[in-house]
């Protein structure tokens, strides 16, 4: 990838794309970013990958601005945060570098500032979880929510989707952060189960697979396997496996595989074609039966 960043050379030269990424953090994120990287490489782009640490938005902004200065041909941005991108996007616009947003959109959603947005919807995923609970417990039930670190956009989006659809009959006894971590989720769930022993806990909504898997282990240890429905979002292979094994009850996919679409979109934009501003990536909702069908072909 060396020495490739100036775009002024001939048209037949490889196009350079800067990828402002989150970084390999396991599960969804790794699958997604690997897919994006592979797809762009297959499509003949020269992709410069720039991950952040600790989901630090500042590092992403720095990387973004650097890509603008490097005069790359296009930037794909997988933002950790929806807000705070205006200045940078304006710079890119001034430099006439098209920006494609992956996964997270921007707020306020000024469609002038980017070329396209591709990604699944977090709010949708949260809604699916709530609808499943409503359906399972028409008379209402008690449960917990395991959240990611307080304040991240994903956490807020998935929560707002969940809350918007959840029946008032359902009672969320407590929402606790388990920091996206399997191991913390296990501890937290064990504690919550102990504490609310008398409340007949019937559902746990874990905002990602990792936490759901931890919760499942705590539920199992407490001898409540099957009695507590666990719903998770993401759809990684271990979660689907757990779904088949009956440890989880529902896995809502947050489809990470849209690298090809992204690469195609970027190349269309560079070729001057018009593209859809908002491309929603289809995600599925898995029950045990459906999971069994796809588990073997699941790449991540």
């Amino acid at each position, binding site marked *: 990838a060396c020495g490739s960043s100036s775009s002024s050379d001939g048209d037949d030269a490889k196009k350079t794309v800067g990828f402002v990424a989150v970084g390999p953090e396991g599960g969804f994120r790794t699958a997604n970013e690997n897919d994006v990287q592979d797809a762009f490489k297959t499509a003949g782009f020269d992709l410069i990958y720039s991950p952040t640490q600790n989901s630090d938005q500042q590092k992403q902004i720095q990387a973004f601005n650097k890509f603008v200065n490097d005069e790359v041909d296009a930037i794909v941005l997988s933002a950790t945060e929806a807000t705070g991108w205006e200045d940078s996007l304006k710079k890119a616009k001034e430099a006439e570098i098209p920006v494609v947003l992956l996964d997270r959109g921007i707020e306020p959603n000024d469609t002038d500032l980017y070329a396209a947005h591709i990604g699944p919807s977090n709010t949708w995923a949260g809604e699916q979880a709530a609808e499943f609970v409503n359906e399972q417990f028409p008379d209402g039930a008690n449960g917990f929510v395991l959240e990611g670190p307080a304040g991240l956009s994903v956490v807020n989006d998935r929560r707002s989707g969940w809350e918007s659809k959840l029946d008032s009959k359902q009672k969320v006894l407590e929402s606790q952060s388990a920091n996206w971590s399997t191991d913390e989720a296990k501890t937290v769930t064990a504690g919550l189960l102990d504490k609310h022993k008398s409340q007949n806990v019937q559902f746990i909504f874990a905002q990602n697979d990792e936490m759901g898997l931890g919760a499942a*282990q705590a539920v199992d240890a407490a001898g409540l396997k099957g009695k507590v429905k666990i719903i998770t979002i993401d759809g990684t292979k271990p979660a689907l496996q757990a779904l088949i094994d009956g440890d989880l009850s529902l896995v809502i996919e947050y489809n990470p595989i849209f690298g090809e679409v992204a690469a195609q979109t970027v190349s269309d934009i560079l070729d001057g074609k018009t593209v859809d501003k908002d491309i929603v990536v289809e995600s599925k909702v898995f029950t045990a039966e459906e999971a069994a069908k796809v588990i073997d072909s699941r790449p991540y």
Partner: protein
Amino acid sequence: MTNPTVKRVAEPSAVRSFIQRIMRNQLTWSVVALIALIVLCTIFDRQFLSLSYNPRTGGLSGPMITMLQESARYLMIATGMTLVVSTSGIDLSVGSVMVVAGAISMQLLSTGTNVWLSILVALGLGLVLGAINGALVSLLGLQPFITTLIMMLAGRGLAKVITSGQNTDASTVAGGEPLKWIANGFVLGLPANFIIAVIIVALVGLLARKTAMGMMIESVGINKEASRMAGINPKKILFLVYVVSGLLAAVAGLFATASVMRVDVSKTGQDLEMYAILAVVIGGTSLLGGKFSLLGSALGAIIIAMIRKTIITLGIDSAATPAFFAVVVIIICVMQAPKIRNLSAEFKRKNAIKASQKAAIA
């Protein structure tokens, strides 16, 4: 010239001196803090202290048991950290060493390696990372803070390289049971990992106090140059403590990952270096180095686990947990401050001075 130069202060009554000794002892306040947290939890949740036999796991179950289970990893890293801190160093890399050990063990296990070999390799890797820290600090003379900060960055990267960025899951791999048992099993009704941790802490304690290791570590921490002049090889000591810390962090990493048989490359061990340092300080070992107390650190480790348990039990809103944590830590540290501990003595002193000033005027 034979009569003693200083007179003993007139012995107060035995009971009073006992109470005074207890009041002055830093451990006392740690115990008080622990009890206070347990009481708080019990008020909130009457079932908090209840224990029941769980036939599924073959051990006791109840809030206190899960607390002890979680404390095992803190016990490990706090023990290693104590030795490092005693040499006036610091090991910020324990969390990262944990994830590396967890990652390699899960990765090996899921690719069919024998479970014992996986454990051994994980421990060995922890040892090697500790040795790298040790070599950089002792041989190159780099500052511990920055050296282990670098290892903290690099270690997490290494874990990601090991699993290619995945959260490797070995929960369904056959043959992983021994590892699973280590973190989830029970011995005599008590959590196995807690028992193992206590045994390891005891072993390190024996090693430190029954050999001259403890004294030499403290000596190097207090005055490196004087120790060198007394024939101690400070480099060897420094190297040793980082190796021990790395090894114990690897054990902690195994506890943390084996508990769910899955490594979270970006989350396992995150921020745990801070908890370990807090445990050490709550336990009465100064970050400036010198005298250390493994028992104190162990208590500190349990307090940390207890604070986290309290957060869950009280149902503190996830947004408010850091603040709650901070408040508890501040209260514990303030209670331990000499100023508070010597409050009564200071009061007496002030009175005495007033009296003698009056006498001087009269």
